[in-house]
């Protein structure tokens, strides 16, 4: 197993005590595409970030097991974590505008990521960077390599980000709402690209999103989170057989082009969903 999470709990200290944001999440991930879906505040991003130990300082993380490829993340030294972060597991965030360095060209950033993990000469790194940009289906990789982030569109920036994350040949890609800032046409392209790269390179993909149909479309399995807990886990093809009323509510309350409805069904939240 690439990722094992067992009974993960994350809490934040507040003036009135500890506020639990993740309350006993268990997940496993092999070389497959797992989607985590939930609304804002459901704890989906925290769960993924805890794997790389990228949580704010006031967070308290507890788990029966939190492991990446057999390495206990909670017990690992900072040095071991650095070897995982960015090298064995890449993280792609929502908005490339904020994750790319504005004063370095795209090519230099990819080359630096490549050199940091593989060493080698600057010229080799620059060549590798252009290759990587070509792999993320950028039509004119040499030109994009010489551009600064502000000269790139959102979709292009996200491709550069993915190329950077692919540089060290990671085993796991964590994508936190990678396409929420992008247009629908670009969104589909980026997701198809990620899907393709993941299956071609045999990586694991953890896709975090608020969009259940989207995740169902691109992942093998889907975990639905609600209030810090996984309420339902199912094969992507079986969204039709979702049992939990929350999952069904999520699917129902979207307006649909093919099925007009005068009023949208509104989700009635049952307090029982909060119970373990």
């Amino acid at each position, binding site marked *: 197993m690439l990722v094992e999470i067992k009974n993960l709990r994350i809490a934040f200290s507040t003036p009135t005590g500890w506020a639990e944001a993740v309350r006993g999440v268990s997940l496993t991930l092999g070389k497959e595409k797992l989607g985590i879906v939930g*609304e*804002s505040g459901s704890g989906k991003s925290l769960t993924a970030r805890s794997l790389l130990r990228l949580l704010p300082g006031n967070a308290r993380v507890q788990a029966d097991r939190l492991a990446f490829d057999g390495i206990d993340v909670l017990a690992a030294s900072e040095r071991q974590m650095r070897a995982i972060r960015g090298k064995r597991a890449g993280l792609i965030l929502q908005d490339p505008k904020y994750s790319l360095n504005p004063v370095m060209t795209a090519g230099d950033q990819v080359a630096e990521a490549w050199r940091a993990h593989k060493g080698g000469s600057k010229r080799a790194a620059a060549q590798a960077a252009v290759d990587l940009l070509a792999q993320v289906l950028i039509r004119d990789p040499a030109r994009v390599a010489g551009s600064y982030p502000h000269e790139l569109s*959102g979709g292009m920036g996200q491709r550069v980000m993915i190329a950077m994350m692919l540089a060290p040949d990671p085993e796991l890609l964590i994508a936190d709402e990678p396409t929420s800032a992008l*247009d*629908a*046409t*670009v969104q*589909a392209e980026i997701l198809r690209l990620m899907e393709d790269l993941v299956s071609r390179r045999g990586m694991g993909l953890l896709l975090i999103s*608020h*969009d*259940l*149909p*989207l995740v*169902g*479309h691109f992942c093998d399995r889907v975990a639905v989170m609600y209030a810090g807990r996984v309420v339902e886990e199912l094969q*992507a093809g079986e*969204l*039709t*057989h*979702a049992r939990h009323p929350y999952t*069904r*509510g*999520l*699917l*129902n*309350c*979207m*307006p*649909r*082009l*093919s*099925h*007009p*409805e*005068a*009023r*949208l*069904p*509104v*989700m009635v939240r049952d307090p029982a969903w909060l119970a373990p």
Partner: protein
Amino acid sequence: MIAIDGLRVRFGPNEVVHGISLDVPRGSSFGLVGESGSGKSTILRAFSGLNPDWTGKMRLDNVPLDRKRDRAFFRRVQMVFQDPYGSLHPRQTVDRALSEPLIVHGLQDRDARIAQALSDVALPNSVRFRYPHQLSGGQRQRVAIARALMAEPNVLLLDEPTSALDVSVQAEVLNLLRDLQQRRGLTYLLVSHNLAVVAHLCPIIGVMQGGDLVETLSTDDLRAGRVHHSHTAQLRALTVELEDGGEAAARASA
């Protein structure tokens, strides 16, 4: 109610809207869809008076609009913004946000009007003296809608009103917008990148691409796939493709 004819809008040296025309009858809704940068929000901002750098003709209720709008215009036309976190003043309570239009237009009975406005958007009276950071995203957007309705306008400009919200909250806000329209006979001009949202609220849809209105069609035609422009077809295909899974699920649960 709204008539726009040959509208061109510039940002500095760049023209971002290249002469678009549209009509929205009283009490109806017109939806503008398109990707980011297609100019759809710019049209709203030009009509609302926030962007004065435009040429062409715009009419409200058959009266031509000037660059500069008078106070009466703002009683008739109001706008709801995309980001409910950015559209409320961070240091002002809900009460203050809702009072502002009343003070500006010199309307009396502030207490009664605010209480009524809160109940119109289905917010409890207990939120009245809270600050925006104490509210959820959906509650904030309801406050923004309530604020827009304070001066009892006829026209509401909706700029991606649900795209920053979770889908379950989006459903509530869309239902609310529909109820308000029926109750008050409002005219909507809605902008969104989400085809399904636009189709849900509007009987007529305009598709924007690169500053041009490439196609105007009825929602029924869109749903049935009777589209002419390739961009419309592309947007429709993407939406329908993703709906397949969800649609089947909904059928199973029904």
